[in-house]
């Protein structure tokens, strides 16, 4: 059977055909089979957003509308224009050590600076990496097993594309690596797998951007990210998603941080119909640290269910979970901040801070902090605030000559500044532009 084609009910035959077409080793074929069985038996999550609009029998589980190219110029016109508008070729020249671009199920473009390649860094498409490096088996879905949730299982069965990064011991990649994910086909499912293995003492910053044109039918993005930060390694993972309002964005992201390692998650969620995203760091070794910075902007008809989890499994570990949610129109935002300190994780520190800014009377929000400590020798802090933009602030800024939309976006920018300043410049400028545009639209 061919794996390309129109929407279908997912079958075991399809999953096998996908593996055959990709020329995968037998372990991966077996892995996909097992994940498919788990998927079939698993229920939808019993918390969070309504997923009834997601039809598993009306999705293209694999789509390859474009062939991979070596140069941007060789992409079809429409796509080239899109990537130009997103300023990807420009960023590649100016600010990145490497760049990958994926359209639907397959990576269509990839580059890596020679000097980074010479450092021994591997930056490859996940499909290629699975064929070329058998040892990946020891990492692939070892941080997030299929049994974790239905979407993890689905991902394991049909994953395609994504990024593999290996950073050799002691190597610091000084400039970020980036991947861009684009969903181009109607009712497509995108299931890229990202695996980062940072060897002891190494460091790397990886950035993901995501977007899609809007279609009438629902699309599904269900990526998985696994990070293995070994002793003393530093990994920063930044995601900015601006999916269109027909996309269900249901991801799994988890990092294992060994002794003295640092893992930072930075997430900006601006789009999608529904998002479920809870980046998790397991602090496995003494002195490991994690920071999770999340910014969500929920508009009419959107439900952004996000959060952060830190599991303290070793002494003297530190976590800081910071979120800023802005809600406009009838949008909804939920933030779930979970910290669990295990009995032997003495001397650990955790801080959870979630602030919400409501721009309209219809805006809905909920914050659900869960802080558990199984030892007394721990410092836990939690703050939550919900506020509205005050008329006084708006008037003050307008009395200085700023329009209402400018005033609103300045206040919102100020509110999210603790996150915004951690986002790479090109993206923070784009974010500011997007915010201002949406206020102009709303205010008229």
């Amino acid at each position, binding site marked *: 059977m061919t794996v390309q084609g129109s929407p279908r009910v997912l079958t075991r035959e399809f999953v096998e055909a996908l593996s055959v077409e990709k020329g995968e080793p037998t372990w991966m074929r077996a892995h996909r089979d097992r994940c498919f069985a788990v998927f079939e038996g698993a229920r939808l999550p019993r918390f969070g957003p309504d997923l009834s609009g997601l039809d598993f029998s009306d999705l293209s589980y694999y789509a390859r509308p474009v062939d991979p190219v070596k140069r941007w110029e060789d992409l079809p016109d429409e796509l080239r224009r899109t990537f130009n508008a997103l300023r990807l070729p420009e960023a590649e020249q100016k600010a990145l050590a490497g760049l990958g671009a994926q359209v639907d199920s397959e990576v269509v473009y990839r580059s890596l600076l020679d000097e980074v390649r010479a450092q021994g860094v591997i930056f490859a498409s996940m499909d290629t990496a699975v064929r070329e490096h058998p040892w990946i088996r020891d990492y692939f879905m070892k941080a997030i097993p299929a049994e974790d949730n239905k979407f993890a299982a689905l991902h394991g069965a049909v994953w395609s594309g994504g990024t593999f990064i290996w950073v050799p011991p002691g190597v610091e990649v000084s400039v970020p690596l980036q991947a861009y994910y684009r969903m181009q086909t109607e009712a497509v499912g995108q299931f890229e797998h990202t695996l980062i293995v940072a060897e002891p003492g190494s460091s790397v910053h990886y950035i993901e951007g995501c977007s899609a044109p809007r279609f009438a039918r629902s699309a599904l993005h269900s990526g998985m990210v696994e990070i293995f930060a070994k002793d003393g390694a530093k990994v920063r993972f930044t995601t900015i998603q601006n999916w269109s309002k027909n996309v269900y964005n249901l991801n799994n992201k988890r990092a294992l941080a060994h002794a003295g390692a640092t893992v930072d998650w930075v997430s900006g969620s601006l789009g999608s119909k529904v998002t479920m995203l809870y980046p998790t760091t397991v602090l496995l070794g003494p002195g490991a640290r994690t920071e999770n910075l999340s910014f969500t902007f929920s508009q009419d008809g959107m439900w952004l269910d996000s959060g952060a989890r830190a599991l303290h499994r070793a002494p003297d570990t530190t976590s800081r979970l910071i979120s800023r949610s802005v809600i406009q129109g009838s949008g909804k935002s939920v933030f779930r901040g979970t910290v669990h300190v295990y009995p032997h994780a003495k001397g650990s520190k955790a801080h959870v801070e979630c602030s919400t800014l409501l721009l309209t009377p219809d805006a809905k929000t909920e914050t659900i902090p869960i802080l558990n400590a199984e030892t007394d020798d721990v410092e836990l802090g939690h703050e939550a605030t919900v506020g509205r933009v005050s008329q*006084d602030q708006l008037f003050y800024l307008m009395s*200085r000559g700023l329009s*209402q939309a400018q005033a609103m976006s*300045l206040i919102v920018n100020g*509110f999210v*500044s603790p996150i915004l300043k951690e986002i790479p410049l090109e993206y923070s400028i784009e974010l500011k532009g997007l915010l201002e545009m949406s206020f102009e639209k709303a205010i008229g």
Partner: protein
Amino acid sequence: MPVLVVEDLHVSVGREPILRGVNLALNPGRVHALMGPNGSGKSTLALSLAGGPGYEVTRGRASLDGEDLLSLPPFERARKGLFLAFQYPPEIEGVSLREFLRLACAERGQGFCEFHKSYPQAISQLRMEAFDGRELNVGYSGGEKKRAELLQLYLLKPKVALLDEPDSGVDVDALRLIAGAIRTLAESGAAVLIITHYPRILEHVPLSDVFVLDGGRIVEHGGPELAHRIGEQGFEVVRR
């Protein structure tokens, strides 16, 4: 020719009439004072001219350079050259003073380069070096807020500046600094209106006109000597 003209202005706040027919004209290059007891409507006048929310104009006119002011949204009044220094400026978290001023100056037609020259100049003139990099009004003391308002005034170069109690809560040194800035502003051709209870600040500026507001009307209009009389005898002197 006056630059700002207010005629028979009636303003209500929450249906309660506060201003009951204010007449007033401000001339370019001159410093005017608006005095009056607590609750006489001084701040209401300033806020309704700036277009504050909740200030309902029920009758009357106000014009800037002959153009109607009251039908414009607040930001267009500002872009035409009206500036209100707030008595209680609100705090705007996460927004740097500099970034905010850059935006506001751009709306007043000042280019990037011009701002990058004028900003440090104004900062050093007002001895506000310590403010650079701070957030807009966040954690400022009362006196610091007044100076930050003045910095904005300096950079935005309005045609008409309404200063709502620029002297309250400031020490002697800051008062001199503020008075100096007002002088410079008037010399550059702006019409200035200082709203105050106290004649103290008025001794440090080249004052031309004093208006006294009471019960929502201008009850007295005179020269600097009127401020002296009020300073010595209180507002009783204007009550008949």
